[in-house]
């Protein structure tokens, strides 16, 4: 019986979505999009952090080495990268604050008796507003950053 069960188990096809399960943000609404952006911006900021540590470590190479490194950020691509840093850090911060409140059950509503069509209380306008505010502020910060970085050229 055990051998039969093992054979059955080995025959079953694993159907786990894996990474592609969370890489597609379009299927489940704003909250899933926010989840996706939070991860994406987090990874980007992690890369930026590593690069930033490398950049500042050039200080020990003297003033010339430091200036050469700074010149990299004064190119068009350098500016675009910095604008992305501004946008991602703004979104990650604002959405992170929303999540701190949400994950401690603030702004989610209270349990009740669900009525058709069963709209989830936790996916309410407070949460969506938080996501929109994070997106709008990130866009505004990127626009301001663009005007500062590219405005002088």
């Amino acid at each position, binding site marked *: 019986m055990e051998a039969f069960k093992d054979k059955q188990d080995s025959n079953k096809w694993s*159907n786990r979505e894996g990474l592609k399960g969370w890489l597609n943000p379009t299927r489940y609404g704003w909250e899933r999009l926010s989840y996706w952006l939070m991860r994406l911006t987090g990874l980007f900021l992690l890369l930026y952090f590593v690069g930033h540590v490398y950049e500042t470590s050039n200080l020990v190479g003297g003033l010339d080495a430091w200036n050469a490194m700074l010149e990299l950020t004064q190119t068009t691509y350098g500016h675009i990268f910095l604008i992305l840093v501004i946008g991602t850090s703004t979104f990650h911060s604002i959405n992170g604050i929303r999540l701190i409140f949400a994950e401690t059950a603030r702004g989610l509503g209270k*349990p009740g008796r669900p009525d058709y069509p069963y709209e989830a209380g936790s996916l309410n306008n407070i949460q969506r507003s938080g996501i929109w505010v994070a997106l709008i502020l990130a866009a505004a910060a990127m626009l301001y950053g663009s005007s500062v970085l590219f405005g002088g050229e």
Partner: protein
Amino acid sequence: MKKKFLLARDTSEINLPRASDDTSDIVLNIYRGGPNQKPENSYDSYRVPVSRWTTVLDALIYAKERLDSSVAIRYSCRMASCGSCGMKINGIPRLACYTKISELGTHTITCEPLPNFPLIRDLVTDFQEFFDHHKKIQPYIQNLHPDPSIDKLSEFEQTPQQVDEFLQFSYCIKCGLCYSACPTVATDTKFPGPQALAQAYRYFADSRDDAVEKRLSIVDDKHGIWRCHFAGSCSKVCPKGVDPALGIQMLRSHMMSITKKPKKRLAELRETSREGS
């Protein structure tokens, strides 16, 4: 009937099995796969007549009864009570009996097995792992210290407010849609999933239950409740309004406050729970 293995969206030039000359036909693409079927990731397409109130399950049953009896589907109540007919319909986990063709707004319906569940055949998946997670959180009322002043044969009394604390979460039909939609479940096999965690809150919030710390010690794990990142997809797909995301955040909120209590006690309970299992 000779099967044609097709890609889901590549149905335009295929000579489909035709059920009738009804002008409101739809193309029903059904995932075909199983241990002994090749090629992988293939779909069979059927033309099925539909009316205004036809559900996806109605269309599947039509296809199975009249066009191809080898299609494997699982269903029972046909009224969103048993949770048997969960599947991915046009990319989103839904109950086939609860999804009207008309509400999908397309004439091409693609049915696939629920993601994150091992596939048995076609649209039938294995729920064993899902039920194991559910059992692990001890989904039953535990009350070791009932009030001795109450007659043993009488029921536990609760106020309407106390019932409202957990009633929403007790509507779960264990259909697995939330488990299927959860991005954490997609990458972590040890994560209990939204259903089990919401049920942990359901018993936590029940005034009749006194196994609070014991149950919390089960979900307080690095693969447990802390792996939820509030993507909200579980609540989005729930067909019964259970809102697992709310339950999980409520439970997590209580757990954060419980850390004020001695952590040693929680560690002891966790150890006892492991020995017991």
